[in-house]
């Protein structure tokens, strides 16, 4: 029974083999196509390398150009100083006395004129 089943499978595969063999492409054509792929592959790799190279050159030249143009961003802190609405709370009473230089001679002069 098992052998008969195996024989049946073998016959079915044999029919499949005959059909596939009839449609097999010629060997020389397959080898020629394979060799053609061999020459096409480096061309593709060369194209890819050229694209990557061009991209690198573009990035380098843009960054160099920006550096030459003074591309470094400089910020004038005086112009961008921000004041909080609660800054007045930091002001102490008599704060201006601490910031100004006392003028000692001025009071005696004032007295003289009075």
């Amino acid at each position: 029974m098992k052998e008969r089943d195996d024989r049946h499978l073998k016959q079915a595969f044999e029919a499949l083999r005959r059909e596939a063999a009839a449609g097999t492409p010629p060997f020389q054509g397959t080898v020629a196509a394979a060799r053609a792929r061999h020459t096409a592959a480096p061309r593709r790799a060369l194209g890819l390398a050229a694209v990557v190279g061009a991209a690198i050159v573009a990035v380098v030249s843009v960054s160099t150009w920006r550096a030459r143009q003074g591309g470094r961003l400089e910020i004038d802190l005086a112009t961008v100083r921000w004041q909080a609405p609660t800054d007045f709370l930091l002001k102490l009473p008599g704060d201006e006395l601490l910031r100004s230089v006392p003028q000692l001679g001025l009071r005696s002069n004032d007295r003289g004129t009075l």
Partner: protein
Amino acid sequence: MPSADLTDQLEQLHVTAFGWALSCCDWDRSAAEDVLQASYLKLLDGRARFDGRSSFRTFVFGVIARTAREVRRRALLRRSIPLASWLLGPEPVDGGPDPATALARADETARLMRALGRLSVRQRQVLHLVFYEDLTIAEAADVAGVSLGTARTHYERGKAALKRLLEEESE
């Protein structure tokens, strides 16, 4: 191996190699031709070198099986990553048989192909190598890259499943 000898040996194996490539590519003729060309290229430019550890046929079939796996992976990559098709080159067109050929295909052959398509890849490979290519199970294990025990299991289970599927098809 000298290039002329290699070409001669490949020519002798060409018909069976194409049958094996068809099986590895789910009977897609165009994909099989693509795989066979890529495999021959590997063999001819020395990327795949025969070291005499197995028979030449087993070695060539192993190269074809590996190449088919690579082509499948590349096709998956092409579909999943944008621009990958541009980098990897054009995808081979679907090489299914034209309607006239499909009509002419013998009923039994068509049933066998449908049934084989429902088996697992490993079962299909081992059965193809044993029944179609007349390889021993040990040689089939070598080509499929599995142990002898695993190949035997795939062979027995695959054969039982194939018989069942063929009976279902004929009912």
